């Protein structure tokens, strides 16, 4: 049986970030990286750009074989892990092969979650989670064709925009009352909504699909409010769920995702989890939350890797902050931290609807707790730091509100030079 000191399942950001952290401390300990994907490591964040053709599929890879060899990593693509036995410290692959590990990181990511719509599973539909998905969807783009996207989250909107740019007539069906509710408030989401409308993409809010019927190229979607939508192409983007099947029968605690502590340790000795699959403490929330974003995967992966090699520089996880950037139809948006002000919060808003500018800062007493913007000049990364460091603005707050770009840069220079 193959024995490895470190076994990492999943080769996207969390897995790679852990790998780098391990190799900083332990240059030689045997390290095996397995993934169910059949290609070199890449980021799912690239898929909308593969779909649009902006990124060439053969150039999306984050590592090549040579760099993995250089780090003494045994890379096993096309190897889906199907079982973990924490007592004998073995992972079974689909091929039947078993790998014995000393330390295991589960970075299996998340899989698309299908909504409970009658007939959906059987009907031809697309998701956007793997490179294959993206290439498949790209090959189906037909000028003047009708496309329906279920879900107005980041993946859904990226897909809708790219299908529209490919010449399709696109409708987006969203059950909630606004787009991107996890990142933007009503006002900002209306601006995004407007950009889509201006570009011919119809977004149906407060709407659900009740039934899907038809065969390839002839799918029809029945809406809950009545009426049908023809969908030559149906894309489902109603969220993701952690891939935890591999843990069936193991003693590793799973809630929505794999429950981890602030060092990304699971309840089982020798097993860590990080990234989209992990459920860890929130920054604002007292409970453990999922946070399927790239920056979160990078950070959790790094912490897991550092803990796996007992890196003395490890600082424990401070909690996941919701954060992302979003580019759409020539506009750029970002969101960090709190989206909707809680009671007792103050809000500083700067909106110029005509020039498509939006900026919102949320404060709790003298601390910044949320920042979001559309075509804003703020440095998103500095906002992240101000929130994470719980910086007290004190009497700088008034000046900060008046000219946040300058004052935040001066504060950054003073505080974390």
């Amino acid at each position: 049986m193959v024995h490895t000191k470190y076994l990492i399942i999943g080769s996207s950001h969390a897995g790679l970030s852990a790998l780098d952290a391990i190799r900083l401390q332990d240059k030689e300990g045997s390290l095996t990286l397995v993934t169910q994907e059949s290609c070199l490591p890449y980021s799912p964040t690239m898929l909308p750009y593969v779909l649009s053709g902006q990124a060439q599929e053969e150039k999306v890879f984050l590592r090549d074989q040579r760099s993995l060899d250089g780090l003494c990593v045994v890379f096993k693509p096309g190897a889906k892990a199907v079982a973990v036995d924490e007592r004998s410290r073995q992972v079974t692959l689909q091929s039947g092969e078993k790998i014995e590990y000393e330390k295991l990181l589960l970075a299996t990511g998340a899989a698309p979650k299908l909504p409970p719509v009658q007939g959906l599973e059987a009907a031809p539909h697309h998701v956007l989670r793997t490179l294959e998905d993206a290439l498949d969807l790209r090959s189906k783009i037909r000028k003047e064709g009708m496309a329906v996207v279920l879900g107005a989250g980041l993946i859904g909107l990226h897909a809708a925009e790219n299908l529209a740019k490919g010449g399709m007539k696109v409708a987006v069906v969203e059950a909630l009352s606004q787009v991107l509710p996890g990142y933007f408030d009503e006002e900002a989401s209306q601006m995004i909504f407007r950009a889509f409308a201006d570009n011919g993409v119809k977004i149906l809010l407060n709407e659900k699909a009740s039934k899907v019927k038809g065969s390839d190229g002839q799918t029809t979607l029945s809406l809950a409010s009545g009426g049908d939508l023809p969908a030559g192409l149906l894309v489902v983007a109603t969220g993701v769920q952690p891939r935890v099947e591999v843990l069936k029968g193991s003693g590793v605690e799973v809630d929505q995702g794999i429950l981890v502590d602030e060092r990304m340790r699971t309840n089982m000795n020798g097993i860590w989890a990080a990234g989209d699959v992990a459920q860890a403490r929130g920054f604002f929330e007292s409970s453990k939350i999922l946070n399927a974003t790239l920056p979160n995967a990078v950070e959790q992966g790094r912490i897991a890797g550092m803990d796996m090699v007992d890196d003395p520089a490890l600082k424990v996880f401070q909690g996941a902050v919701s954060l992302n950037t979003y580019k759409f139809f020539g506009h750029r948006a970002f969101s960090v931290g709190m989206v909707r002000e809680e009671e007792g919060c103050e809000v500083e808003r700067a909106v110029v609807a005509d020039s498509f500018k939006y900026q919102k800062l949320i404060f709790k007493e003298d601390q910044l707790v949320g920042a979001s913007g559309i075509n804003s000049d703020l440095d998103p990364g500095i906002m992240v730091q101000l929130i994470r460091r719980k910086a007290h603005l004190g009497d700088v707050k008034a000046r900060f509100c008046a000219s946040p770009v300058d004052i935040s840069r001066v504060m950054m220079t003073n505080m974390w030079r």
Partner: protein
Amino acid sequence: MGNSFNTIAFFQDKCDGCGDCVPACSRHHTGGADSKHSRIKVAKDAEQQSFGIALCRQCGQPQCVMNCPSGALSKDLSTGIVKWDKEKCVNCQLCTLACPYGGITYNALTDQVMKCNFCDGDPACVKACPRGALELKQVASIFNAWGDLEDLVAPGLSACLGCNSEMLLRHTLRRIGPNVVVATPPGCIAGVGSVGFNAKTGLKTPVFHPLLTNTAAMLAGARRYYKRIGRDVTMLAMAGDGGTADVGFQSLSGAAERGEQMIYICVDNEGYMNTGVQRSSTTPYGAWTSTTPVGSVLRGKTRDAKPLPLLMAMHNCEYVATASTAFMEDYYGKLGKAIEAAKKGMAYIHVFSPCPTGWRFPTGKLIEVARKAVETNMVPLWEFELKEGRIRFTHPVDNPLPVQAYLSLIGKYKHLDGKQIAFIQEQTNRKIGVLKNFAREEKKEQVSNAA
């Protein structure tokens, strides 16, 4: 050992927000001065009149690289520069979310992100800064040049926490190398254990413990012996200010006068720091020591320090220099010259060496104290080469900080009143004036050789 890289340092207190760096940057990258293209941003807090900059730090473990999904950003391990590949970038902006410094920003004119690429090693912003607020730090070159060499200090030194002398000892020996005989007379350098414990030496080189009075004389003899048996071995004294400026001065002065071949380094912590913090002849005016106490009559030392480096220059040594651990490039350069000079005669380096224990300041402030001493002109950095016959400032400070910026960091000066501080300022100005006179280049009359 991995590579170390040069960086651009920003000195906030020197920045007046003129913004000259901005068009310089734009011009370098685009040929035009439109500030929107600038990779460096100057930010202003008008009320506080303080300034900040947003600029790529070329981090060692760059967050932007870690968070880039397309592989467009990468750290070049040969140059240290975080590179951005326009072809691979998909413009997702996640790097702007990852960078804590505003070091990679969106350029509305190109609809892409942009970042500093260090102008191929010669940053335009640094050259454009009229006040020295931006500085190209090349200390990394020391690490690259000497980092792989062995640390010649044995494990187990017993220096105080935050000791400058220990650091100095390690750097000095690393630069000079193992072909050396080290003399460490009574004082902190010997006291930290360099001469050893239990019949084992504290250095990995030959080291001995002369008397406080005869360091230079003993090294002179050792050098002559080695020469006689045909070996070129460097003689190095690492002595305190007591062993140099007080009772050790007679033998040092004599050796300098005879042109004995050695490197004599005075580690000046301005007093007898290992025997209970007594004053020495290099203790400055106003300083508290246990023998210049602060009470109702005495307010610290009443006399000023002996200007030892200048005295040594007047001995016509081959090479004389002052140095500070806050300016390592400078020190390494001077050691290099001293090694050569000591083949011909005496090389004397006077290293300003703040002492957290005896001077009463937090251990973490050591380098800050050392730096402020230079930036207030209280410890000017200069060198004297016999062949040039004049003093040359190696780190001229054109806009010195008030001496209070240095004095206020240190416990031994905390009793000073306004009058004493004014006196120290006056003396500092006078002494820098004297040095400047020695540094002046004589304009020789042009003699025409034309027939």
